[in-house]
């Protein structure tokens, strides 16, 4: 059954590509002026506008949903510094499910490939990651938030994070800095606010901005204080900087090959690139919605094009009498349908731009915490939306175009 669906899908894709190529070739070589199609499209402007609006809706939904997936992916992919190496427990897919013991951390600390700061201190930080269940704003129930216990060096290793309000937490005090995006979504996240978790009270000392990275979905506090507060013996992960990529490779090989260390080391960039699992279901929903809605859009385009062929039967007859063959007539209506749909596609993309940059949150399937990200409409997505619209238009106008091309000249001429 699956095999059959695959064959069907491939046949459909092949046919679409063929019709698309034919239309493109004819668009470039057809003797029928393109102006004729453009002007004809707007003669029946009510039907045309309704079809354009329908296709715009489909393309808008498709691009918006995909923009959500891209935004989610981008927030992960933006994160990480190519000079940093992340170390987590072997087998864990996220920091929240990882453990690095103090002994392991000590061992890593002495690896010679680690870069050092001006004072000769190794640039390495062990972080504690804790999931807190906190209330959202305006009765939105509770959601998990990722709290990162981070050392001063850990903060230096993530220079993209900047304080935008208040001040950084003071080591040894129960203070947190929340991300601006989370502050907009959770209760008691304003500077000076206090909130309780597990019977312990934390004070918000500042608000930070993660520059569209995964850190936009985190709360930060002092690493040692967080270990004490949440009674954690071990760390969750280790982040360190190496001098150059070659040193990084040596360090990674060293850790990965040591049987006594059940740890996984990888470039920080790669780690965050792998944290995009949550985007999968969103993409699927996008594709599914687009497929379902495109069936409707194809019928809308078909309806408009059938009406158009019906109203222009005598024009078709005239063109045939003047010497135009069936193929240019067929192509002319395909091009017209494609143009109509393309206009819908452009409108849909423009509409979806309203969502560009809009922040939204979802539960990450990796960390099981609230991940805040922005809709990201990329040139690639716009291109996808436009190609998608042209395909809808071509399939919608194929049957009407065939009807137009097959009309006998005499019958077409006698039409009123």
């Amino acid at each position: 059954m699956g095999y059959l669906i695959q064959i069907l899908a491939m046949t459909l894709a092949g046919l679409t590509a063929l019709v698309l190529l034919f239309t493109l070739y004819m668009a470039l070589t057809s003797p029928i002026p393109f102006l004729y199609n453009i002007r004809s499209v707007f003669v029946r402007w009510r039907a045309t506008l309704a079809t354009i609006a329908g296709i715009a809706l489909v393309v808008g939904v498709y691009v918006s949903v995909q923009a959500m997936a891209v935004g989610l992916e981008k927030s992960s992919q933006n994160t990480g510094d190519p000079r940093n190496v992340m170390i987590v427990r072997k087998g864990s897919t996220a920091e929240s499910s990882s453990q690095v013991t103090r002994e392991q951390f000590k061992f890593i600390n002495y690896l010679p490939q680690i870069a050092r700061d001006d004072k000769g201190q190794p640039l390495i930080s062990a972080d504690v990651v804790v999931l807190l269940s906190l209330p959202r704003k305006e009765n939105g129930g509770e959601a998990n938030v990722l709290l990162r216990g981070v050392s001063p060096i850990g903060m230096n290793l993530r220079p993209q994070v900047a304080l935008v309000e208040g001040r950084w937490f003071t080591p040894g005090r129960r203070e947190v800095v929340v991300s601006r995006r989370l502050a907009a979504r959770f209760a008691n996240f304003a500077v000076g606010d206090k909130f309780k978790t597990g019977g312990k009270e934390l004070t918000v000392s500042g608000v930070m901005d993660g520059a569209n990275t995964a850190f936009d979905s985190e709360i930060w506090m002092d690493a040692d204080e967080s270990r004490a507060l949440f009674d954690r013996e071990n760390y969750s992960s280790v982040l360190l900087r190496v001098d150059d990529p070659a040193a990084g490779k040596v360090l990674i090989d060293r850790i990965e090959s040591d049987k006594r260390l059940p740890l996984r080391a990888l470039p920080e960039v790669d780690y965050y690139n792998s944290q995009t699992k949550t985007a999968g279901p969103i993409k699927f929903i996008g594709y599914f919605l687009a497929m379902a809605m495109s069936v409707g859009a194809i019928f809308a385009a078909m309806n408009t094009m059938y009406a158009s062929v019906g109203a222009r039967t005598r024009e078709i007859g005239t063109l045939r009498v003047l010497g135009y063959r069936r193929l240019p007539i067929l192509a002319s209506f395909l091009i017209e349908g494609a143009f109509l749909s393309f206009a819908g596609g452009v409108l849909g993309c423009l509409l979806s731009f309203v969502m560009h940059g809009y922040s939204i949150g979802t539960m990450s399937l990796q960390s099981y915490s609230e991940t805040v990200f922005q809709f990201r409409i990329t040139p690639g997505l716009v291109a996808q939306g436009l190609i998608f619209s042209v395909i809808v238009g071509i399939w919608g106008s194929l049957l009407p175009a065939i009807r137009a091309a097959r009309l006998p000249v005499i019958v077409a001429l006698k039409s009123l």
Partner: protein
Amino acid sequence: MAEANIVTVRKLSKIYRQGDINVTALNQISLDIKTGEILTLMGPSGSGKTTLLHIIAGIDRPTSGECRVQDIDVTRLNESQLADWRNQNVGFVFQTFNLIPVLTAYENVELPLLLTRLGRKQRRHQVNTALELVGLGDRSHHLPRQLSGGQEQRVAIARALVTSPSLVVADEPTGNLDSHSAQEVLSILQSLSQSAGKTVIMVTHDPKAAAFGSRSIHLEKGELTN
């Protein structure tokens, strides 16, 4: 020396099937048309004159018989060959003008030329010449709805002439025009024959229009009566 025949029709029949009944539109018609003449086809509705015109012009096919135009048996050409042949050899003028409403007069006249190998400059020259010939050089950028009926028909004549066909067929070209416009259109068709040597075949009900022709033939029930 006698002028050569441009059209030779032999034993041409056209039978339509309407449900279970066969309707004979043309019955064994034989006819010669000389180069440069204006032949008017007259007869009551349903007499077969338009069918005969359509077969000669290559837009309909006979049931049997032969129709040679300039020594080409048009009944033997396939669809694509017929389309090319029509483009190069026949100019059409319809009762209802049949201009493309969204295209300007210039663009309408240019339509048949877009199928030729002519470049843009040469096309422009030929379109402008054709429009000048029908007295509409100053209306080239008007849409059909901005023109009067007579002007629309003159644009249609310019379109019929622009490829320099040897044969011009006109189906009731004055049927939708007032008498003044009709007179203008007929004069243009007459001058085509007299000064440009074109052969014009015109279907008409109007005896005044028929008077412009050099010869007139009558059809009744699919047969020639004179």
